[in-house]
């Protein structure tokens, strides 16, 4: 039928144009990058197959870590307020309570061994450069000792309920020292001026990042920021795949809080419109049968 032919022509023209300005233009402007790597294969200074000893780890952590880091859940509160910590170190050293839960084991071990290399920040803290990363390398520890520390950190991690609670906890522990989330009324724990000086620019508020960057981009970016934004000051945080999914889920909860309502309502509206269209068609047939 002629009208179907016209419709097909219009749909083809619109489809070709749409392809050019949406998926195709996007692929040109944002070329595909290597997929996210949650095994952190490039970090291999520490043999992470060794079984850690929690007791020994506890001793090592108490001797080496708690001078700077709080481990709230293991009875080691922060030794000074955030503002003072930021003034001393440039950035607030993270509370390690969640470290065993959110970071990949392989990453965490290699981070302790050599933080700058693990974080892919060699461009910012070159060997022998003017600035030194606030946390020293613990490459003098034996792999066994490092794995003991990891085992201890994993053992003190608090139980967090899956879902919303975990999403929020992970986001705040992994991103919250630098990034704010205004739409959740959450401010970065490092004071604004300090973080700006430390990073070179104010880290963006992440309220709308689920929309402005999208899940696909965030997935690659969080795993290794250098892949998408060469030279950025943002470190590779080393989240496990699960922790990263929790972060993205939290960003969606805050940045797109009406998604579920939108999809549910959408279905009803579509059904209603479909019924309207059918009735309109039947009515049209009846009316036009008199004039044809």
């Amino acid at each position: 039928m002629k009208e179907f032919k016209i419709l097909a022509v219009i749909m083809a023209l619109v489809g070709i144009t749409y392809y050019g300005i949406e998926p195709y233009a996007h692929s040109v402007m944002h070329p595909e990058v290597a997929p996210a790597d949650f095994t952190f294969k490039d970090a291999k200074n520490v043999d992470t197959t060794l079984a850690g000893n929690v007791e020994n780890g506890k001793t090592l952590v108490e001797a080496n870590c708690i001078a700077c880091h709080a481990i709230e859940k293991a009875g080691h509160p922060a030794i000074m307020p955030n503002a003072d910590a930021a003034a001393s170190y440039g950035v607030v050293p993270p509370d390690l309570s969640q470290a065993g839960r959110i970071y990949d084991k392989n990453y965490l071990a290699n981070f302790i061994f050599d933080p700058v290399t693990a974080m892919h920040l060699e461009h910012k803290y070159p060997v022998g450069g003017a600035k030194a990363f606030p946390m020293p390398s613990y490459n003098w520890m034996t792999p066994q000792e490092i794995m003991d520390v990891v085992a201890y950190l994993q053992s003190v991690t608090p139980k967090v309920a899956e879902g919303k609670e975990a999403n929020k906890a992970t986001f705040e522990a992994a991103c919250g020292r630098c990034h704010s989330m205004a739409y959740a009324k959450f401010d970065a724990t490092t004071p604004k001026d300090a973080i700006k000086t430390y990073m070179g620019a104010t880290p963006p508020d992440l309220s709308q990042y689920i929309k402005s960057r999208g899940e696909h981009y965030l997935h690659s970016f969080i795993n290794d920021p250098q892949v998408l934004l060469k030279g950025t000051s943002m470190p590779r945080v080393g989240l496990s795949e699960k922790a990263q999914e929790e972060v993205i889920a939290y960003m969606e909860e805050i940045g797109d809080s009406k998604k579920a309502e939108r999809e549910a309502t959408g279905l009803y509206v579509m059904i209603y419109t479909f019924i309207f269209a059918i009735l309109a068609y039947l009515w049209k047939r009846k009316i036009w049968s008199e004039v044809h």
Partner: protein
Amino acid sequence: MAEFKPAGSMYEWFDQRLGIDKFVKVMMTEYWIPKNINFLWAMGVLLTVMFTLLVVSGIFLLMYYKPDINMAFDSVNYTIMQEVAYGWLFRHIHAVGASVVFLIIYIHMFTGIYYGSYKKGREMIWISGMLLFMLFSAEGFSGYMLPWGQMSYWAAYVITEIFGGIPLIGGDLVVWIRGNFYVADATLTRFFMLHVLLIPLAILGAIVFHFYSLRFPHVNNEAGEFFDFDEEAEKYLAGDKKNSKVVPFWPVFLSKDFFVLGFFLLFFFYLVFFHYSFAMDPINFDKADGLKTPAHIYPEWYFLWSYEVLRGWFFEIAGISGKSLGLIAFGFANAIFLVMPWLDRSPMVKPANQRPYFKYWFWLMIADLMVLTEFGKLPPTGPNAWVGFGASLTFLVLFIALPFITKAEAKKVGGK
């Protein structure tokens, strides 16, 4: 004033005072439309519905939107999208509607060109329609800026900058339009006024005029056939509905439009609920930052073709800078459709497929516009720049050649 008899019913009371019966006859039941039309003739009604949806959703957005550079972004992305009940629905209807309305306008416009509906006798329909297109463009552009997103800011920057290319007054004109030396709060506030008051008023006026301009020359039909509407209407009223070439606007014409509308709304609501991102540039979810230029600046899809005509001229020709050439071409592209009725010198009112030369011209023009649209978004580097230049040049050549092509066609057909 005639003496009024006591009314027997409420209907009669109003009818005596407002002439409801007569009004309905003139506007609806005895407003004659050719029977020989296809679904492309429903685009006018779709546009009316879309405009209504945009006005209604716009009014709801207006209740919470703040035209201030410090508050605009969050008032849209947080207050409206997350706090106001169904605010997201109105925002998506408005944003998707703004994009889809241009799709329908383009279909409406190229239907007119394909079937020769701009020709002798119907010039005013065409001109008022093109006026509406320009007003909708201004409305779309001013509204795009309001959420104060990063791309809308920079698009506003680039588009207002275009006026700087006008000789002598350019620089001052840009400052006057922006209300500041750069795109700033003053710009946002005035674009807000334009978007919610001045341009919508002008659009309403232009819509009324567009409808009015249809009344005397009547709507064209699929075959471009001329006939006596009065004679055909008499046949219809006498009961010979099957042989009459016309149908009344209500209920016959509208019943078909409602059917088309139903399926269109299905497509529209699918976009609103499940695929709204096509109409919302992700970069606009970053707040405008005058100190940080996005990697690629491009307008919304419906302006891409004219944007590409503007930037396609990237080198100097005969001592005229690429920028000036682009500006001239851009001015030409935006004004040329307005004079279509005089560029087409063939008296024949027929669909393009029945016209020996025009059919090639029409499809070439559509293809060229598609190329311009697609390359308008791509980075203008390497071969892309040359394709853009070629397509821009083709656009100009097509319209310069149109009078000659149609004249030759008139001769050929007349000689038969």
